[in-house]
């Protein structure tokens, strides 16, 4: 028995050194050398300040921006979290109805337009960076209105969405989505050149 315990201690040590030190440190080194941007969180730095991560959604309440998906944690991942509401929970049903009305109201959409599901339901991570292309396009009219720019720019903004659309990876994997933070950054950048409507 004593022999077994001593052997176990030695094996514990072996596995800890091998898989708890050598392995993660090697991956750290490789990651930091080959993919330093990703390994450090794909942070977006502007004028020396971190303004977010390409992988994280942000809360956009201002009507001049594309809005992200509903989040149970208001995009502050400390800790990350979801609503965990069940389909049989009355609160979820209520939330979905409210979001439907709000999305239509905010974006001047008629009742006949179906609000895409991603805008009705909160995400799993609470920081989902994406929305569907459809959800983005339904917001264009509002953005034009609140940015007070020429309605002719509708096509330009629509093209902007298309240019940032992420298609299924390798043509098969995943959904067609657009990153809201990238989209809003691009929108801010582009709109500097657009004159506001007289």
């Amino acid at each position, binding site marked *: *028995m004593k022999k077994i*315990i001593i*052997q*176990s201690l030695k*094996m*514990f040590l*072996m*596995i*800890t050194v091998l*898989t*708890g030190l050598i*392995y*993660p440190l090697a*991956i*750290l080194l490789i*990651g930091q050398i*080959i993919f330093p941007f*990703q390994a*450090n*969180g794909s*942070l977006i730095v502007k004028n020396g300040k*971190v*303004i*977010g*991560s390409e992988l*994280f959604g*942000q809360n956009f309440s201002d009507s001049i*921006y594309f809005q992200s998906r509903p989040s149970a944690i208001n995009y502050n*991942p*400390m*800790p*990350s979290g*979801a*609503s*965990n509401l*069940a*389909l*049989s*929970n*009355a609160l*979820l*049903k209520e939330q979905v109805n409210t979001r439907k009305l709000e999305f239509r109201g905010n974006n001047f959409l008629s009742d006949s337009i*179906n*609000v895409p599901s991603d805008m009705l*339901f*909160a*995400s*799993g*991570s609470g920081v989902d960076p*994406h929305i569907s292309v459809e959800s983005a396009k339904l917001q264009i009219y509002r953005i034009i209105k609140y940015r007070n720019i020429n309605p002719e720019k509708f096509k330009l903004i629509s093209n902007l969405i298309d240019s940032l659309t992420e298609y*299924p*990876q*390798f043509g*098969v*994997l*995943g*959904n067609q*989505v657009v990153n809201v933070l990238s989209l*809003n950054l691009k929108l*801010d950048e582009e709109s500097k050149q657009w004159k506001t409507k007289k």
Partner: protein
Amino acid sequence: MNYLLDFFQFILFLGLLTFLAYYIGNYFYKVVIGEKNILSPLLLKPEKLIYKIFRIDENEQMSWKTYLWSVLALSFINFIAVLLMQLFQQYLPLNPQKLPNVEFLLALNTAISFVTNTNWQAYSGETTLSYFVQMLGLAVQNFASAAAGIAILLALSRAISFRKGTTLGNFWVDLTRTVLYLLLPLAIILSIILISQGVVQTFSSYAVAKTIEGAQQVIPLGPAASQIAIKQLGTNGGGFFGVNSAFPFENFTPFSNFLQVLSILLIPASLVFTYGRMLGNKKHAWMIFDVMMFVFISGVAFSYWSEVSASSTYHTSQLMEGKEARFGVFNSILWSVATTAASNGSVNTMLDSLSPLSGFVTLLNIQLGEIIFGGVGSGLYGMFLFILLTVFISGLMVGRTPEYFGKKIESYEIKWAIIGILIPSVVVLFFTAIGSTTNQGLASILNKGPHGFSEILYAFSSGAGNNGSAFAGLNANTVFYNVMVGIAMLLGRFGVIIPVLAIAGNLVKKNIAPDTAGTLRTDNPLFAFLLLSVILIVGALTFFPALSIGPIIEHFLVQSGITF
């Protein structure tokens, strides 16, 4: 939704899984028997070096009792180490966020959870654990508990294939080879690919961003990639961050998602072929693989149908609550079925918000005993118990002494097999009964109505099945759940390991009777059908009453528009 694309992704997944599992399974067989293999030029020297440094006698052969005591001793030391690291994390290095020591009961629960390959998490990593504890505590257990499970399977396969033997191999050698030749190489490849897809691997403290609208957003970081790779490969499932693989830093692209969900099933599926080679019957391996695949595919199809059809109750095209836009419904469903079939427990979607019958599939997967691929090693040795039961029942039907690979299956084996099958089931039902009738149990529920019952049922199924996923609305960090789920995890792990090794110890001594015309074949479709029936009948009889007052009744209520 694009059904065609979903279907194509599924076919791709199944094809790649089968292909890789077959080759890795055969490769690992060579590793196990010490034959020259593709990695031996690279790893033979380190392997021998480990034996030399740690004075392991490679040729020592262990009886089943020595093998079992070694498993238990290592698990106990691992448990103490992980517990202490958490209790004193603020005095340890690599804690840039200055996180305080973990409270005792939570630390206890977490230590049991990771040592038993469960990875039930009553905490959120980003606000609870330092990089030190994650990397040197939890990630190490992801390797150790996985390797221990695989080693036990190897011991079992020797017991079946040795003629009148006494020993089952050497636990330390099995453990070392599994880590070195199987887990580490795959984890290295996977973690590097994951980093390229956005998964973080850094020691920096959390970034603080000032968002476009001026709000402050804390961006948690850490050495995540190395841990996430092994969390999937070792069917551990414990997330580095709270929401697991739904979190962008754990799983950002559809490609990383595909690789992770593939990794969940990869090793359990491969081991089926390793097992077949060790028993010298590839057809038997395919029989087991087909049964597992059948239940798995049925689960995915049923769950997907449920999710699509239930969307009408919300007058919308897709149910996206708790799901990430980049994955959509299909990838979320595929993951939820794979992770519960395989005793993994990682999630990329919130299981609590699945449609009732999709939730039913996840529960049933766990309750069948985590044998549909199951945990690494543990899935197949759990399946072995069901095979024994099937052999026994069919033997009674044809009036012959039941045999498995020429070894007589007698009352000793059947008694232990029944114990191994019953312990987890009894734990699930009794603990759920306690949880749903006491204030301590009920206080943690988030969703009211039948779904609240499902949350409790899920917690104990997950604990006893060593799965680790949750209907996460349940507040698990309470005295009641930390203690009760802790006990469930221990019973679910060792309540199966001990019977399996006891059976192995008895089987190995037996002679191998030659096949005759009357021998019940265990490698044909008839046996596959019998096995499948036994699994479903045992699972259904045990859990149908509980499931019907949980997800099944919820389904009908949701259909008729009733909410709570």
